[in-house]
């Protein structure tokens, strides 16, 4: 499956925690090789949707199919990588050790050169031997991204991966990193609070309502790929940002953090 990116289909997907209905039945299809941004108010169920796709949560109804397979089958092939809102780095492993762990868990051969290349790419050159406690919040999130990418997954699930990254680094990562997964045509779901980030990174933006989440807008992003910093000055970009913000029901380029 690693050669061709998978299409992700959520059919009648619903999820509840006890009395709390987080997702009302949703029908969604994420095209193979596309990057889809998921935006919506805090607590509407975006992380839950991502965890359902990753097979970490059991749907109360409906199912997720990834390239025709169940999430757990894709998990076992090591073809799926998820970055959580909080960087889940093991504190007793160095940065390099944490990235290598993903190769091991995914049953891939160890590849020190690839590990170091990714550490460079996320801008952590020279920190390979640092422990997570020695890194800032933003650095830890970048380390998580390196860990996700090292296994070259066919499906990439990113939950607010740049939330703790400072604005400047964020723009740089927004421009650099997508090249990595877009070159391979990875199917990517990206949860973000930042409307500008969604427009900059995604091929398509889904705007969700309050809980239980429903799709209130499905906006294709037809800006040419790959995108450069200059694109943020363009009129189509600004129009898209305005459209997404409208759909969210508020002005401004960014939602309040939770």
């Amino acid at each position: 499956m690693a050669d061709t990116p998978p299409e992700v289909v959520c059919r009648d997907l619903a999820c509840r925690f006890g009395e709390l209905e987080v997702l009302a039945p949703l029908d969604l299809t994420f095209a193979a090789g596309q990057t889809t941004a998921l935006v919506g108010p805090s607590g509407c169920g975006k992380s839950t949707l991502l965890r359902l796709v990753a097979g970490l949560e059991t749907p109360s109804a409906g199912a997720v199919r990834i390239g025709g397979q169940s999430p757990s089958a894709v998990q076992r092939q090591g073809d799926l990588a998820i970055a959580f809102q909080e960087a889940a780095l093991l504190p007793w492993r160095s940065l390099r050790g944490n990235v290598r762990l993903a190769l091991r868990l995914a049953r891939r051969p160890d590849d020190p050169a690839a590990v170091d290349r990714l550490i460079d790419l996320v801008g952590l050159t020279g920190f390979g031997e640092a422990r997570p406690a020695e890194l800032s919040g933003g650095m830890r999130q970048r380390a998580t991204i390196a860990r996700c990418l090292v296994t070259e997954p066919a499906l990439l699930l990113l939950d607010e991966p740049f939330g703790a990254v400072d604005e400047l680094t964020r723009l740089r990562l927004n421009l650099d990193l997508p090249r990595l997964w877009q070159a391979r045509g990875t199917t990517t779901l990206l949860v973000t609070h930042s409307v500008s980030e969604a427009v900059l990174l995604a091929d398509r933006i889904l705007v969700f309502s309050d809980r239980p989440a429903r799709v209130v807008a499905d906006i294709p992003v037809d800006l040419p790929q790959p995108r450069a910093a200059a694109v943020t000055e363009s009129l189509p970009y600004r129009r898209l940002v305005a459209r997404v913000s409208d759909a969210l029901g508020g002005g401004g380029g960014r939602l309040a953090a939770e």
Partner: protein
Amino acid sequence: MRGALEAMTRGAGPALASTLGLLLLWQALAMATAGAWILASPLAVLDWAAERAGLLTRATAVTLGAAAQGFLWGNLAAMLLALVSVLVPRSERVLSALSLLAFCLPLVATGPILRVLYGPGTGPQVTLAALACCYTTHVALLVGLRAAPPGWLDLIRSYGRGRVTALLQVRAMAALPYLAAGLQIAAPAAILGAMVGEFTGAERGLGVLILRTLRGLDVAGTWAIGGIAAAAAIAAHAAVGALARRVTRAPPPVILAVAPPRPGRGPLARLAGAAGLILLVLALWWAAMEAAGLPAFFAKRPGDVWAYLATGPAAGLHRAQLLGALGQTLAIALPGYLAGLALGVGIAAALVLAPRVAGVAMPLAIALRSIPILATAPLIVLALGRGAAGGIAIVAAMIFFPTLVACLQGMRQTPAAVTDIFDSYGAPRLTRLIHAQAPAMLPAFFASARMAVPAAILAATTAEWLATGRGLGALMATVASTSDYGMLWSATALIASVAMLAWAGLARIERAVLARAAPEQLS
């Protein structure tokens, strides 16, 4: 490395000074009370010990050897139990209950039983030492194995890996600091277990010597051996701590703050669970005796105990004897328990109101906690006499230090942001204590109150065995010498049941209080 060295020398200065001060005070007190048969001066104690250096060295080696073996077996068992609990979560409830039961066994009654089961040798001491450290390590390890944040485990799952990988890659490493903390508590506990084992009829060891000096009213000897036992326990505590610091980087966690086990669904399910557990224990007990082919004369089965207490010819007499002794024991254990808890909480609160004193008192309390108070029980008997006061004091002392340390550590868990808010309004320390630190302390307090139940019974019965001549401890001493195994087994079953019931009752109160005061602590 240099930092550690500096920290050590920084701590060593005041410690040395206060030790010297204590010694001087001791000498002065001894000289003042000379002739009262209570206090031997440090010089007299040293003199006594120097004359018998060879004997003391051999006895110490015997006791420490038994303690080390028990430490090994008890902790191995604890690790195995915790491992199975994590890999087979459904087994956890039963395994934890069995481990608690082993902790609740009254050593003064199990000691003589083990003595006859094993015959001569160090078997009983080793077993009692193992029993004394298994539960605490088990609990610490269980907490540690669960301490890993869910995100770390999700990471493992997201690659399709299961419980074994999670255990190897995440849980085991995350549990290391907890294991270290558990082992540190277990080290002095093992020495205490070995010494109680020696009280109940060994041929050699510190426990034997201290009994002999106590009965011979040899004050200097009692103090010398009590001092050696205390020093050995502090050294074991410190050595395990130093070893742990080399292995784990993380600061030691506060493992006492364990939420009580979740009760079963309804009252019926809980009743069924308790009944199932009792049946299981009875079946295991019976099967162990049968499998070992032990004669019913001293290896009583559940049926024998039932006959002894309920249906046999002298059952009424036996019951009256046992329950009478239980009443006497509780009359010592209960006030001592309450006094120990109250003192622990009170002094912890006082120390928090006077933070400068707390800085000095905390390390002192932690060091004193490591002393097996019971091993020094003979000293308290010397000081307070053989009446109820001495017994109550021993129980209170046994419970006071762990409670104090737990409460201080619990209060330290108060989030800095919360205390900062109180400080930013210039709130008095007492207000901060009542509204922020006391609620933060509750879980640690309750956990320590639960653990103190078996400790209180152990302390009370040992004091009775050694000195007061009343209660279950004295009864066990008598029936051990008359080979009344029916009574020994009955007492074991009764005391373990009482301790388990008290523990469960406390857990219920704990859940009710925490649900109101600190609902986030209940998982």
